[in-house]
């Protein structure tokens, strides 16, 4: 019996490199950023690290990080 059709295994990028979905790229202004980590908490994709680096391979460019940042430290730049 071949189990493979029934089993799906953990994978980063289960939908591929979703960075290609982006129209806009979030860019963090390190000057303005106070490392409050709010963007880290609210990124639906979980692509912002605790030291506020964005993994552009997978960031879909939703813009939530930009909106949530009280410091206005994130800008959405057209791809």
């Amino acid at each position, binding site marked *: 019996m071949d189990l493979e059709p029934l089993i799906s295994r953990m994978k980063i990028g289960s939908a591929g490199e979703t960075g290609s*979905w982006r*129209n806009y790229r979030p860019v963090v202004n390190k000057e303005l950023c106070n490392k409050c980590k709010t963007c880290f908490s609210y990124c639906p994709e979980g692509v912002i690290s605790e030291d506020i680096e964005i993994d552009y391979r997978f960031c*879909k460019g939703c813009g939530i990080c930009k909106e949530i940042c009280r410091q206005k430290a994130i800008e959405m730049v057209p791809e």
Partner: protein
Amino acid sequence: MLLELTIYCRGGQGGVTSAKLVATAAMLKGLYAQAIPQFGPERRGATVNAYLRISDTPIRRRSSIKNPYGIVVFDRKIALNSTAKLGIINSPDPIKIAEKTYYLDATRIAEKNSLVYAGWTVLSAPMSGAIAKALDIEFHYLKEAIRMELGEKAEKSIESAREAYEVVLWT
């Protein structure tokens, strides 16, 4: 005569609609046509395909298109190497993606006509213009097709399609 085209675009750009518009135009011209979306969840921004068949006799087959006569590319970022006879690409500059490639700056045309929804430039109208031109479908059929699909909200789209129909060039 059976023409098969594959449309490559990103979710939100209007690839399926363009297939429908051209298929309807072909129907109005007295031909037979099929417009086929990708079968499955479409996510905004992700690459999706659509398909188009046009024929002068009823089209019976409905399996996927594997070796299209033509390919249509909505987004230059979708890199493509094809052996198709016909290519149509949204690009300000000439790029060769098929034996004979049509190109146009569909994004500019759409934006000019403010075909922008929720941050997404919708390219169905201009791209359908370009496809119709490449397939030798008279513009008035396409115009009627856009009316059928969009009703009163059709005018801006018709404009874009017309401009595309006129400006599209080939290499």
